């Protein structure tokens, strides 16, 4: 079980957009500034927690700049808020700054691209339970699948500042080089462990890249890199290791299995369609095992998660 450690101080907050730019082929980066009470609430933001972003009254971009695949979707009005993680959170004087990395995949994320510096966004948070770092851990294996990067990147920062005794290693996977949500591309991708990926290297974190099509790093699923590393380091005390993962559910399932086979602790950040994010609607069910029983129960991704102990989760429920 992941512990619940957050203060329950969540609320509806305003954030000022400091910048909002296209940061790669497939994703955007928005920097937000919280002040006043919100600054305090978000100063305690834990990696893996999330926010609910209101895009319902944002404009849509000019038709020319809407990707063809999204033209139909762009016409849909947006009603519900959308959940997003932060990839970085920093306290600066009286304010708290937060970075949001997002993929443009539908009407809400498309509207987010029209926010400009100085605009004010409405968001609810901080929500859910983030990653925890149990005592005695020496090595954290961070596994990323595509847009699962933000909470893991946020965790890498926390480990490098508050858990200096824990060495972090990142395994970053994506379908192809273009879908790697990295702001700065390395000069050359290294299939092996190196400091070549700036996003992690600046935190002193070694990393390894894998793409399904071999366009960067290792060709194949990122889970092969994780399994190989564990194979090469079998002599490490398994109690000192922990795996953290965020990405598509299929990847999380594979990561969970690798960790379970070696009896290594593993925390996964799950995703569900959420209508509210605050426990009102019951839309975000995750099937979970009950300890010492063959029974399962539904827990709520937004309240009991989104970070779960991998042993608990029954994967594959949502393949849509």
């Amino acid at each position, binding site marked *: 079980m992941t512990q619940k450690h957050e203060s329950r101080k969540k609320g509806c907050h305003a954030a000022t957009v400091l910048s909002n730019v296209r940061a790669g082929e497939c994703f955007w980066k928005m920097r937000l500034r919280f002040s006043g009470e919100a600054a305090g609430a978000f100063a305690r933001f834990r990696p893996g927690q999330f926010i609910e972003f209101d895009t319902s009254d944002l404009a849509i971009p000019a038709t020319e700049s809407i990707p063809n695949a999204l033209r139909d979707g762009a016409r849909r009005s947006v009603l519900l808020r959308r959940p997003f993680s932060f990839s970085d959170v920093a306290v600066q004087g009286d304010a708290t700054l937060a970075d949001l990395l997002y993929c443009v995949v539908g009407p809400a994320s498309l509207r987010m691209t029209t926010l400009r510096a100085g605009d004010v966004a409405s968001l609810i948070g901080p929500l859910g339970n983030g990653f925890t770092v149990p005592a005695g851990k020496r090595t954290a294996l961070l596994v990323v699948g595509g847009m699962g990067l933000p909470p893991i990147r946020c965790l890498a920062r926390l480990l490098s500042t508050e858990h200096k005794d824990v060495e972090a290693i990142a395994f970053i996977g994506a379908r192809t080089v273009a879908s790697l949500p990295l702001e700065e591309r390395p000069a050359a991708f290294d299939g092996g462990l190196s400091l070549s990926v700036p996003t992690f290297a600046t935190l002193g974190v070694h990393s390894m890249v894998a793409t399904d099509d071999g366009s960067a790093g290792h060709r194949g699923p990122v889970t092969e890199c994780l399994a190989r590393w564990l194979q090469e380091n079998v002599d490490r005390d398994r109690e000192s290791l922990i795996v953290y993962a965020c990405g598509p559910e299929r990847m999380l399932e594979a990561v969970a299995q690798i960790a379970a086979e070696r009896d290594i602790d593993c925390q996964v950040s799950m995703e569900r369609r959420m209508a*509210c994010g605050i426990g*009102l*609607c*019951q*839309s975000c069910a995750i099937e979970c095992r009950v300890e010492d029983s063959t029974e399962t129960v539904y827990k709520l991704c937004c309240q009991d998660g989104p970070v779960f102990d991998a042993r608990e989760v029954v994967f594959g429920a949502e393949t849509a």
Partner: protein
Amino acid sequence: MSVEFAGRKLANPVFTASGTCGYADELADFMDVNALGGFITKSITLKPRRGNPTPRIVETDAGMLNAIGLANVGLERFIAEKLPLIAKMEPAVFVNVAGTTIEEYVAVVERLAGEKALAGFELNISCPNVKKGGISFGIDPAQVEEITRAVKKACRSKVLIVKLTPTVTDISVTARAAIAGGADALSLINTFTAMVIDIETRRPVLANRTGGLSGPAVRPIAVYLVNKVYREVAREAGIPILGLGGIRTASDAIEFLIAGATAVAVGTASFIEPDCATQIVGGLHDYCVRKRIASPAELTGTLAGPA
């Protein structure tokens, strides 16, 4: 701002709707729940229910479909874990009751009818997302009357609201049946059965195939249905209506009152603005001041023009 609703005095006519406001503690971070006129719990069933597999929701234009499947903690855990908190609330609290047989509904109501803190019950015979019970009671007038009568007997002095489905040919027929069975009030509407298809996979998006449509998209239909039931059935019978469906603003709420509702409930809109219901209380107050109206009760059924 106070109104009388089925013999109960409410501080104001604004409720939060069943299934969209949890068991109240979830909303407490965002608003003063005591500023509400009424509160309706998520549907409670005799035994706990897991609910449907995911995806349970999908957004559509100005609305959403849900197929939660009445996931709830069940009567015993509700009493042990949720009731103590709810009992401390000032608004009139109604427990929404669902089941697969008449006996199940009656068992839940019997068990709770002695709870002093409760104002009454809302009978959910209109849930479109379960295989047995729910809407299958709500579309057959004979069954509506029978279940209402059975539950009313178990209710003791508590108020019984019967929640109607809009997925019928003539909602006035089911409204009449509920009143014949002894309903003290009617609430309408529950969601409309609907479907969204993923054109890549040619499958329904929801695991349950269909779901209930709610949100601003349904509001004009809900206003029409409230007005229809008010004119054709409720006014004459002296039975109040709790109007809901797509309410987001005070103006929306006022439309329902003018159409014939005595009180209103906020559902889907709470997901977007968790304090939406209390904001509406404020907006309604401003309207009454502007129009020199002493109580929102004066608005009920004041639709002008030919009937």
